[in-house]
């Protein structure tokens, strides 16, 4: 393949020029296919799931962006949409669902609670699902309007189209849990989970 390309190389231009163009073509084809046929795995735990349903229904209709088929099974899904707060009791569940999804896979964290813990800065709630699974797009809002989720999906399209199969860096590695059973170093989890905004004033005064 390479020899063919080099023999056809136009004089005066780098032989890598056509190869790079070919790679771009392959990337374009693969990424467009991936981006325009995302199968979402809805992980709806709270009111964000209602907005998610509105996004899927006819008025906003994210089938327009290639998300026609919702995969209620992780093995047939491309993008995990965590819509709603995540209690610690559900943390191993979403982690297993993420592990069961085939590559390539993406995660959208929908809403304030999934992204940061939101108003639930308490003993029972995961302070951001990025302490459990890697997240590609965070959609803010409480809950986000369907337009917000659609914008997040379009940002994910953009991100997918910027990826390359020929990167030396494996972007889509599995990111398994380390031997401590965590995705991130403990200090980082503590830092991410620190109270911010109004919740720094929230303590139980006994």
């Amino acid at each position, binding site marked *: 393949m390479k020899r063919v390309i080099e023999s056809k190389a136009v004089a005066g231009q780098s032989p890598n020029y056509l190869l790079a163009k070919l790679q771009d073509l392959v990337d374009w084809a693969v990424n467009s296919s991936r981006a325009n046929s995302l199968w979402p795995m809805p992980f709806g735990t709270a009111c964000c799931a209602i907005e998610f349903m509105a996004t899927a229904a006819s008025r906003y209709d994210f089938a327009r962006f290639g998300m026609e088929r919702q995969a209620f099974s992780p093995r047939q899904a491309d993008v995990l949409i965590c819509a709603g707060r995540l209690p*610690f*009791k559900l*943390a191993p569940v979403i*982690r297993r669902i993420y592990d069961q999804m085939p590559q390539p896979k993406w995660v959208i964290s929908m809403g304030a609670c999934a992204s940061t813990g939101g108003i639930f800065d*308490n003993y029972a709630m995961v302070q951001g699902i990025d302490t459990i699974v890697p997240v590609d797009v965070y959609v803010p809002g409480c809950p986000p309007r369907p337009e917000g989720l659609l914008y997040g999906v379009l940002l994910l399209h953009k991100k997918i189209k910027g990826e390359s199969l020929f990167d030396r860096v494996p972007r889509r590695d599995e990111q398994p849990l380390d031997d401590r059973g965590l995705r991130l170093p403990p200090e980082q989890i503590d830092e991410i989970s620190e109270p911010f905004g109004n919740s720094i004033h929230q303590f139980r005064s006994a």
Partner: protein
Amino acid sequence: MNPSVDALRATFGPAIGRALESCGDTIVYVGRDALLDVMAWLRDTPQQTYDYLVDITAVEYRDRERPLEVVYNLRSLTRRADLRVKVELDPQGDLTVDSVVSLWRGADWLEREVYDMFGIPFRGHPDLRRILMWETYAEGYPLRKDFPLRGRFSRAEQVRQALAAQPEAHYSLEELSIAEAYEELPADMKERLRHGERGRLPDSE
């Protein structure tokens, strides 16, 4: 004031504490030792027939002098009458209360919830384990006033423990309705279920 209170006093005497009316509801305080007898009497006496246990909950007040309360909301479906029965407990002392599951089967999960959130053990409960938090939860009882809002462990430790949990371990085989299908399960799931048929209960505080 609900006439049941006078009937209770006539029957049980000193075991019945003070009674008051709040927002149209009658609240009557009952001694802990007489609870099971009082409840059985309230359910079975023809003039009372409190056949429906609406809810069991507990209260801990910010005022540390005030006792912990277990609250029983009773309703008589035939007489359309309500009665709220409270049991006072010394937070420093023994918290054990008699279980009323033998009277109302529906008290099973309600008492488990009170146990989970307040650490009040119910004597005679058929299956007393945590219901909302996972069974291996070791940080204490979340609705007690001495429990910090964000839990006792660091966030990293909480995440670690949560990720180490086996979701199947929260349930018994019967609850998963797969007891009869056990032989057909994949090997790894069998293994997990064998390990986690019941979680380990944390040591009480």
